[in-house]
């Protein structure tokens, strides 16, 4: 199996690697892992008072596709509102990076990570995220 040029580009020059202080209320942290391959991913967003994602950082321990998926995602979410970021689907990431079917789960991991980061930000700031409100209704 060979990686696409886009995956290689993100793998060799990952964007936005690093971390924010996860105690900061402006920061949302999403941590996810894929049992099948043992990959772990941390994705953090910094959100403005207007609810815009100003900055994003990630750290991924995993294969090239997992690193590329999270790297691409940090680029995509910058400048988006939380709601827009919430709408990003793993299929869009897989398509952009031309991931082969066996690597699609890496893009799922990235989608789960941004959702988890948004949830974390929302719960820190008193807002009730979709998931939580559904739970409350149920």
């Amino acid at each position, binding site marked *: 199996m060979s990686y696409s040029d886009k995956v290689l580009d993100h793998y060799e020059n990952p964007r936005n690697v690093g971390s924010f202080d996860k105690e900061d209320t402006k920061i949302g942290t999403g*941590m*996810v892992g894929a*049992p*099948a391959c043992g990959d772990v991913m941390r994705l953090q967003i910094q959100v403005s008072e207007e609810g815009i994602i100003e900055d994003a950082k990630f750290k991924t321990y995993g294969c090239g596709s997992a690193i590329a998926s999270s790297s691409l995602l940090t680029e995509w979410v910058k400048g988006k509102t939380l709601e827009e970021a919430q709408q990003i689907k793993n299929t869009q990431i897989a398509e952009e990076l031309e991931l082969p079917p066996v690597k699609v*789960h890496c893009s*799922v*991991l990235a989608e789960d990570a941004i959702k*988890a980061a948004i949830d974390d930000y929302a719960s820190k700031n008193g807002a009730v995220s979709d998931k939580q409100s559904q739970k409350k209704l149920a």
Partner: protein
Amino acid sequence: MNFFELFGLPVIFDVDMVSLKQRFHKLQQATHPDKFVLATDQERRVAMQKVTQVNEGFQILKNPILRAQHLLQIKGIENPPQAKTINDPQFLLQQMTWRESLEDSRSQSDPFAVIANLLDEISKETVKLETVINDYFKDDQLEPVAEIISKLQFFHKLKQEAESIEADLEDQL
């Protein structure tokens, strides 16, 4: 295929490694190609098939993750439900921290000590999880086993990474 039966071992998670190796060598001898020099084509084919099964069985039974999955299958859980992502923040945070300290080990004054410590912790945690799996199997509580298998897979990956960095550092000596 029930590999526990193929090896004549009790169908339990807690496999005795010494007996497993003994049975493996016995089965290997019994199916060795030298024994089939004068055999018919069909006999030889059957023997070849047996060799493959014995090798596969040994790989599965000696590996706690594969053994637990195999045992779940035997107990009727055909496709152990495996979550695509794991959602246990505490566990993931710990995994992340270990991965980071592993990555930083290269720049430490004694990277081998850092890695040795980490490998020690991994082995302790792994033994703990395997004990939990064994208890669940003993009580025939199969549902929680899949999640612990997932956790073991993270430790397996962590261990691989640690060993590969260790080998890498040794090459640089």
